[in-house]
C-alpha cells in the first residue's frame, strides 16, 4: 500500500519545443526511464492524448515524442480550473546500441510505454571461466 499522498505536479511548459502551429501550450511530460538487462523502457504521462495523435520519431540518435490533444469544446462557464490543456513534447538522445527494428510502443490510460530492446552487441555477456 502506498503511504505517500499524491500531489499535483504543475505541468512544466516546454521552451521552444519545435514550432507549434496551434495556439495551445506545449508541456514536458513526466517520464520514467529504466534499464533492464535486455531493454530500455520509457514511460511517459500524457493524459488526454489519444493513441492516434501520438507521434514517436527516431532520427539517428534523437528520440522525439510528441502528443497532441484534441481541440476542447467549451462547455458552459468555467468555475474552477487547476490545469491547462496542451500538447506534449520531449526529446531524448539515445545511445546507438538499440535494436531499432524491435522498438514497441503502447498507450494505456494516458500513459505511453516505449520498450526499446538492446542490440545483441550491447547486452551484458557473462564470461565463464573454464577450469582446465
Amino acid at each position: 500500500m502506498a503511504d505517500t499522498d499524491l500531489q499535483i505536479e504543475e505541468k512544466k511548459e516546454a521552451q521552444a519545443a519545435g514550432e507549434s502551429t496551434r495556439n495551445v501550450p506545449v508541456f514536458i511530460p513526466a517520464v520514467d526511464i529504466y534499464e533492464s538487462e535486455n531493454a530500455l523502457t520509457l514511460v511517459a504521462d500524457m493524459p488526454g492524448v489519444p493513441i492516434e495523435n501520438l507521434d514517436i520519431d527516431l532520427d539517428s540518435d534523437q528520440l522525439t515524442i510528441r502528443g497532441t490533444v484534441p481541440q476542447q469544446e467549451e462547455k458552459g462557464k468555467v468555475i474552477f480550473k487547476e490545469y491547462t490543456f496542451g500538447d506534449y513534447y520531449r526529446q531524448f538522445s539515445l545511445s546507438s546500441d538499440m535494436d531499432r527494428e524491435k522498438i514497441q510502443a503502447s498507450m494505456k490510460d494516458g500513459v505511453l510505454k516505449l520498450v526499446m530492446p538492446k542490440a545483441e552487441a550491447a547486452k551484458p555477456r557473462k564470461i565463464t571461466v573454464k577450469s582446465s
Partner: protein
Amino acid sequence: MAVFRYPDWRWPNVSSALEDVERARRQMDRLLSVFTGGASSPTSSGVFPPLIVTEDEETINVEAEIPGIKAEDLDISVVARTLTLSGERKPEETQDVCYHRRERKWGSFRKALTLPDDVNPEAIHAECKNGMLKLILPKAEHVKPRKIVIKGE
C-alpha cells in the same frame, strides 16, 4: 470675505486600505491569467487530481487528469453537494531494473469538492478515457432554470 472650507479629511481606515490592496491583487491575477490560460496557482488546491469544473444550465461537468489510473482503482462518490474522488496510483511493477529517470509520482489521493448546486445523484455519468476522467452531473430538477410563461388576456 473668503471662507476656507477644509476638506473633511481623516486618517484612512486601515481595513478599507487592505481591501483596496486585495482588490488590486485580484485584478492583477485576472489580468495575468490571460497569459497563463486561467490556471493561476492561487486557485489550485494542490491536491491530486487537478480538476476543471464547468457549469451550464443543465449540468455540472468535472474533468480530471488521472494518467495511469485504472477505472477500478478510482472511487467516486457524491454525498449531498460534496463530490469525493479517491484512489491510488500504483507504481509500475518492475524487477531487476535500474532507473535513469523517475519523475512520475505515485501514491494515494483523496479530494473533495463542493459542487455549486444540487445534483441528481441517480443520473451521474462518469467515463475514463486516455487518462482523463469526465464526470457529467445533471443538476437537480429544483435548481434548473424554469421558464415562466406570461399569459395574455
